[in-house]
C-alpha cells in the first residue's frame, strides 16, 4: 500500500488537471484551482525545509568558528531581519502611510530596492565578463558543428549592433542581410524544431506519469 497510494494520488490529480484543461466551468475548474493552490501551499511549506537546512548548516559553522563564521552571522542576521520585518508587515502589525497620505509604502520595499535588487542585477551583470572569458577560453571550433555555431554567432553579433570601426558599406549591407536571413529563416526553423521536439518529450513523459506507467521518480 505504501507504494500504491502515491501512484494513485499522482494519477488521480493528474487526470483532474487534464479534465479541467479540456473543459470550461464547473467541477473540473474548481478542482484545478484547488490543486494548484495545494501546489503553492506545498512549495511554501517546503521552503521551511530549505531555511531549516540553511540555518542548521550556518549555525554549525558559527559555533565551530569556521574561518568564515562572521559572514555566516551576517547571513543569518539579514535573513531574520528581513523575514521579521516582512512578516510583521504582511500581517499589518505596524501600519504606515506615506507622507502624501495616498500610497502605503512597504518597508520591505526599502530593503528590496537597496539590497536585493542591486545585488541581483549586479550578480547577473557579471555574466558580461564571464561570457568574454568563455569566448576566449572555452568556445572552440573543435568540430564542424561548433564552427558553424561560432560563425553564425559572430555574424548575428555583428548584425545586431553598428560596426565599431568604419567598414565598406557593401560589407555592412551584406552582414545586415545575412543576419536578417539567419534570424528570420534558419533560426525560426531551428527554434520551431527544438520547441516541437521538446514538447513531444514533455507530452510523452507527462502522459507516462499521469497514466502511472512511469514510476521511477518515486523509487518504485
Amino acid at each position, binding site marked *: 500500500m505504501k507504494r500504491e497510494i502515491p501512484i494513485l494520488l499522482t494519477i488521480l490529480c493528474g487526470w483532474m488537471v487534464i479534465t479541467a484543461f479540456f473543459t470550461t466551468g464547473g467541477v473540473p475548474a474548481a478542482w484545478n484551482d484547488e490543486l494548484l493552490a495545494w501546489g503553492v501551499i506545498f512549495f511554501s511549506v517546503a521552503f521551511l525545509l530549505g531555511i531549516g537546512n540553511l540555518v542548521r548548516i550556518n549555525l554549525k559553522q558559527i559555533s565551530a568558528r569556521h574561518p568564515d563564521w562572521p559572514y555566516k552571522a551576517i547571513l543569518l542576521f539579514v535573513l531574520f531581519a528581513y523575514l521579521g520585518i516582512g512578516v510583521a508587515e504582511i500581517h499589518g502589525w505596524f501600519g504606515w502611510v506615506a507622507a502624501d497620505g495616498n500610497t502605503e509604502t512597504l518597508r520591505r520595499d526599502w530593503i528590496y530596492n537597496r539590497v536585493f535588487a*542591486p545585488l541581483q542585477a549586479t550578480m547577473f551583470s557579471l555574466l558580461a565578463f564571464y561570457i568574454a572569458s568563455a569566448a576566449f577560453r572555452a568556445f572552440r571550433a573543435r568540430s564542424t558543428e561548433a564552427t558553424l555555431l561560432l560563425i553564425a554567432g559572430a555574424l548575428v553579433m555583428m548584425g545586431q549592433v553598428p560596426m565599431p570601426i568604419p567598414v565598406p558599406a557593401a560589407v555592412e549591407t551584406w552582414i545586415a542581410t545575412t543576419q536578417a536571413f539567419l534570424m528570420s529563416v534558419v533560426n525560426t*526553423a531551428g527554434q520551431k524544431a527544438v520547441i516541437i521536439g521538446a514538447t513531444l518529450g514533455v507530452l510523452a513523459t507527462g502522459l507516462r506519469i499521469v497514466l502511472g506507467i512511469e514510476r521511477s521518480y518515486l523509487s518504485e
Partner: protein
Amino acid sequence: MIPLALQQAAPEFFDLSSNMDGVGAWMVCFFTLAVYSFLYRDNAFYKTAEHVFVGAGTAFFALQYYEEGIKGAIWEHIERAVNTAPGEIFELGGYAVDPTVAIVLRCIAAVLGLMLLSRLFLPNSWMARWPLAIMVGVYAALKMTGETQSKLVLQVKGAMKPWATTDGGLLGSGEVFYQNLSYVILLVGLICALLHFVFTFQRGKTLGGISRVGVVTLMITFGSMFGFTVLGRYALLIERLDNLAGFTAPAYSLLASADSAGASSRVSQLISPPWIVAGILVLGLLITRASGESDSASAS
C-alpha cells in the same frame, strides 16, 4: 533597478517612502562594487555582499511564499470560508461549493504540507511521498496539456504560412520569389531538424543526410541565439554603470553646497558615493594583498 530622476531633487538622507535615499545610495554603491571586486579575487567585501545576498534572497522568496502560500492560501482562504454563512455560496474556481467543503480541502492540504515537513525528522518516512506524488501529478498534467497546446499545435500551425501568389512558375519572380524561397528554406530546415530527432528508424544514407542538414540548421540557430544573448548581458552591465553614474549627481555628493555649476560640480562628483566606495574597496584590496595573498586562489 528602479531608475531615478537623479538630478532633480536632493533626496532625504533616510526616507522609507521613496525609491532611493541617501543611505540607499551608499548601500547600492557598496553592494554593486563589492560584487565586481570578485572579478579581481575573492575578498572580504565580496563575501559580505554574497552572504547578504543569500540571506536577503532567501528571505525575499520565503516572504513571497509565506504571503501567497501560507497566509493567502491557507489562513485567509479558510477565514473567508468561515465567514461565509452556511447555505451561502463560496466560490472555488468560479464554481459554488459549500464553505465547509472549502475548509476541509484546505485543511487536508495543510496536513499534507506537514507530512512533507516530516522529512526533517524522519528522512525515510513514507509520509512525505504523498504530497510529492500529488505535485508530480498536477504539474506533469499541467505542463503536458498546456505545452502541447501552445508549443506543439500552435507552433505547427504557425509554420503554415500562405504561399505568396505567383504569376507563373512555382516560386514566382522578384520580391515574391525571395519570399517563397525563404519559406521553402524554412520548411526544409524545420523538417530536417525534426527528422534529426527521429530515433527509432534505421539511419540509411537518406535519413543520415537529412539529419545532417537538420544539425546544420540547429547549429546556426544556436549561434544566432548566442549572438543575441551577448546583447542582453552587456545591456545589464551598462545599466549598472548608468546606475552608478547616477549617484555621482550633486544631490548625492558629500559636498552640501553642490548645486552650483562649474568646477565645484566636478569636485562634488568625485566626493560622491561611487567614487568613495570604489576608493575604499581598492585600498582594502591593496592592504589585504600586501598582508599576504591567503585567499587569492579561489578567484580563478
